[in-house]
């Protein structure tokens, strides 16, 4: 793990946050709650994570895995050259930020609530982009 740069570690943390976020609730729908003793008296609130009803899930999975790739390669001691991955991390992180923001604003279902997973996912995507950018800067500085 000592071979990882600061940027790669930041991106890896963002990748873990993004992958965890995909299993948290993103969209919540609240309905009227009736007392449990009444017929049909249940809380009608429900929430869904990102794995239902959106292709965003696959993209975020790919972005998270790419952000984690340098850390995974370092753990397995199987690579020495990460420069391509750092650029890809920055690229996928920036696009993930755009897609999550678009999902939370333009594409968000009417009448639904934004749940914690959406914000953790957005934060994770931002951290991946920042980590990818720092990793690239560190590579440029190391090359000079």
């Amino acid at each position, binding site marked *: 793990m000592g071979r990882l740069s600061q940027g790669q570690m930041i991106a890896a943390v963002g990748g873990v946050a993004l992958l965890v976020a995909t299993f948290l609730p993103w969209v919540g729908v609240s309905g009227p709650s009736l007392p449990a003793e009444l017929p049909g008296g249940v809380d009608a609130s429900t929430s869904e994570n990102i794995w239902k009803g959106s*292709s965003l899930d696959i993209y975020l999975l790919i972005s998270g895995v790419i952000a984690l790739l340098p850390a995974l390669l370092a753990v397995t001691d199987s690579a020495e050259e990460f420069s391509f991955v750092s650029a890809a991390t920055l690229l996928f992180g920036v696009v993930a930020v755009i897609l999550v923001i678009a999902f939370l604003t333009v594409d968000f279902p009417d009448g639904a609530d934004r749940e914690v997973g959406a914000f953790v996912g957005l934060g994770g995507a931002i951290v991946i982009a920042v980590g990818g950018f720092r990793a690239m800067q560190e590579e440029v500085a190391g090359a000079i």
Partner: protein
Amino acid sequence: MDANRLSQGQLVAALAAIALFIISFLPWFDISGAVTVGGTTIGGSQNFNLWEAENPLDIYLLIVILVALVPAALGLLGDGGDAPMASMATALLAGVGTLLILYQIFDTPGDLGRKIGLFLGLIACAGIAVGGYLSMQEDVGGERY
């Protein structure tokens, strides 16, 4: 403007990106249903293009189109300069875009049906990825057509 300023890969990616943009306005999904009232069945269907379907794929593919077109446009205008990331970005984003469209073919949202735009979009996006890959190789070899 001189098309000879573009590499073969950039040209392939740009043409495929223009094709994908046009294809995005064709029907990609449809929803159909039927009701039977008093023995009479009434049915109907509604088509959705890429932009009408509530799916983040539209924003993603717009990004792919722009990433493929901007370096080519700058190259045509003679203002290309060095964009070392452009070919890699085009190949990577379009490759993932192809996977996402393929995923939509096998797992359409809700009860939506597949229409011609989805399949043509898959081919066009794969074309952008191939163009980006060729452009990457040309960058490495320093070869320009």
